[in-house]
């Protein structure tokens, strides 16, 4: 038993989980609205898009890179799809939009991956540049504007509900979107790829030490390239779901999300230098941010406190994990010294 406790106290996930629980109970105490069925369903549906983005961002950060272009990538691929289908007066189901969006996403991701892996350039700067390019293509070449309507198949996918939760006290209802299945599927796929395939282990290995990974026989360039393609696909799926759920296409409304998503991933204990982290932590960190964004109002805190609160959360969260890393490295040092003596 103490072994398990000791193991748990060393994990960032535990602390994040405790913080989430504490925050939930605090909100419940103040408002009595947190653990109602409709609030939980609302939170889950608010998790879908950030959750998908976070899975992509997590995989990149674990590989020692960073991607700040995914909101622009998602916006461009979904805008191109929606406007093309609207012009073609498309009446069919959701499958064609999915295929189109994901294909464009994969293409754009391949662009990122090509530059990063072939020329071996710093991912932060490259994706900064490509996000600027994607934005320019969307707003300049495609001359993007807000699309008030989207094809019928897409909007019916976004609004169809898995089940409907009703709050017995207030009578408010919330729908659980079908799109949550997409999040679950992507989560399972990401888990299988990251933990059960050789390439997935390669992503961790590259993040730990690229040269060692190369010496150990991983095809570093190929893994990196495929990784950015995968992230492009996941991000464009998130963009598609967001547009479907909003039933309108607002081209610029996802831009600027990248910092929040990365913050969530890092809060969950993923090392920004790469090589360490877990999907559980990534999801918990994102959940914490979603809860803060959605539920501060239930605590009676005015919404304009939100940014300040999130900033503090990021600084404290990363500070705790940074000091943990320092403590651990000190511990290994003393162990080494003892062994040497």
């Amino acid at each position, binding site marked *: 038993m103490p072994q398990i406790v000791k193991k748990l106290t060393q994990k960032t996930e535990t602390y994040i989980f405790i913080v989430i629980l504490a925050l939930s109970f605090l909100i419940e105490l103040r408002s009595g609205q947190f653990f109602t069925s409709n609030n939980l369903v609302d939170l889950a549906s608010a998790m879908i898009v950030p959750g998908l983005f976070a899975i992509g961002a997590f995989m990149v950060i674990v590989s020692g890179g960073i991607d700040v272009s995914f909101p622009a990538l998602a916006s461009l691929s979904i805008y191109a799809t929606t406007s093309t289908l609207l012009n073609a007066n498309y009446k069919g189901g959701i499958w064609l939009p999915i295929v189109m969006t994901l294909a464009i996403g994969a293409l754009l991701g391949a662009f990122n991956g090509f530059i990063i892996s072939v*020329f071996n350039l710093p991912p932060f700067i490259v994706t900064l540049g*490509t996000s600027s390019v994607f934005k*320019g293509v969307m707003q300049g070449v495609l001359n993007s504007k807000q699309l008030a309507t989207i094809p019928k198949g897409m909007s019916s996918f976004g609004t169809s509900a898995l089940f409907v939760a009703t709050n017995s006290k207030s009578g408010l209802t919330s729908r659980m979107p079908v799109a949550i299945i997409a999040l679950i599927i992507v989560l399972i796929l990401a888990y299988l790829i990251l933990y059960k395939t050789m390439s997935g282990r390669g992503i961790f290995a590259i993040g730990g030490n690229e040269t060692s990974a190369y010496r150990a026989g991983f095809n570093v360039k190929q893994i990196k390239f495929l990784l950015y393609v995968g992230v492009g696909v996941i991000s464009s799926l998130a963009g598609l779901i967001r547009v479907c759920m909003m039933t309108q296409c607002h081209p610029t409304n996802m831009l600027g999300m990248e910092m929040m998503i990365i913050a969530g991933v890092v809060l969950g204990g993923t090392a*920004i230098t790469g090589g360490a982290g877990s999907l559980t932590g990534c999801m918990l960190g994102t959940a914490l941010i979603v809860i803060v964004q959605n539920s501060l109002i239930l605590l009676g805190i005015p919404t304009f406190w939100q940014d300040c609160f999130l*900033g503090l959360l990021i600084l404290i969260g990363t500070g705790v994990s940074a000091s943990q890393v320092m403590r651990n490295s000190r511990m290994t040092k003393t162990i080494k010294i003892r062994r040497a003596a």
Partner: protein
Amino acid sequence: MKNNNKKGLSAFLTKDVYLSRLIGLMVIWMLFMALAKFESFYSVINFQTMASQFPEFGLMALGIMLCMITGGIDLSVVGVANMSSIMIGLTLNMLAAEDGSLPVYGIPLAILGGLLVGTVAGFLNGVLIAKVRIPPILVTLGSYQLFTGIAIIITKGKAISGFPPVYSATIAGKLFNVIPMQLVFFAAMALIIAFLLNRTTFGTKIYMLGTNMTAAQFSGLKTDLLLIKTYMLSAVCAALGGAVMLANYNSARADYGVVYTLQCVLIVVLGGVSPTGGKGRISGVVLSICVLQMLSSGLNRFPQVSSFYIPLIWGGVLILVMVLNHLTENKKIKTPKSPIKSLSGQKG
């Protein structure tokens, strides 16, 4: 570098690829503008407008450059700038008499207040990076959120305006009726930083810090103190940028200039500062600021081209320059020159 300058322009141009590339880009663009839109581009007013526009983000870019030389990055500059401009705005409103006049010490005092805010913000960044050892990208990401949040709380999300017109008239005015005051601020700060980087031990130390942190530590440098100083200097630059922003817009808000963060990083990288630290010169960064301003002002002369093409061009240029740098650097490795020469080329 001094010796190389004496050898003449051609030697200088081949020596620093980044600078010569930027100069080439600028010359081509100026020629193109001369052929296409000579009257509207080459006018005193156009150049005055350009010189009054770029200092606000130029100052922030100078700060980011310093941090990037140490191997870090400062993404909080826009947050600091907004906080400082709000502080200046509030101080001005407090000092103003009922008829809108300001005491003589009003403007300097207000700007000093803004710079103080910047210093405190930079100190916070620096301590978190140097002492708590959180990666700079995360610290400044979080502190950007925090600073913006504080600014929103102070202003309740609304814009602050209605301060004495004398502030805008002074800071956004013209020296001797020719030189925009904003440019004076920028030039002063750029000269101070150039002096610090090239003529003081502080400059040499931060280049060393960026080249190899561990080596710097073992050679007895107080790395923690150096990092804190660098981030404080960066935030002071940003705070001054905020003062200029306040004068240009004549109002202050928590969410002005959001696009500047990434734009400044692009400028700094285009200017030849290495994102991994240790390399880069202020002349390159200043030049790249000027090139960006000329590109966007020039494009504005073509009403048929949407201004949304600017990010496309800017991002494309960045990626192209990085790929070119990569290719030329690989060539260098294949044909190594004398090690001393290549070392002196890296330093400012």
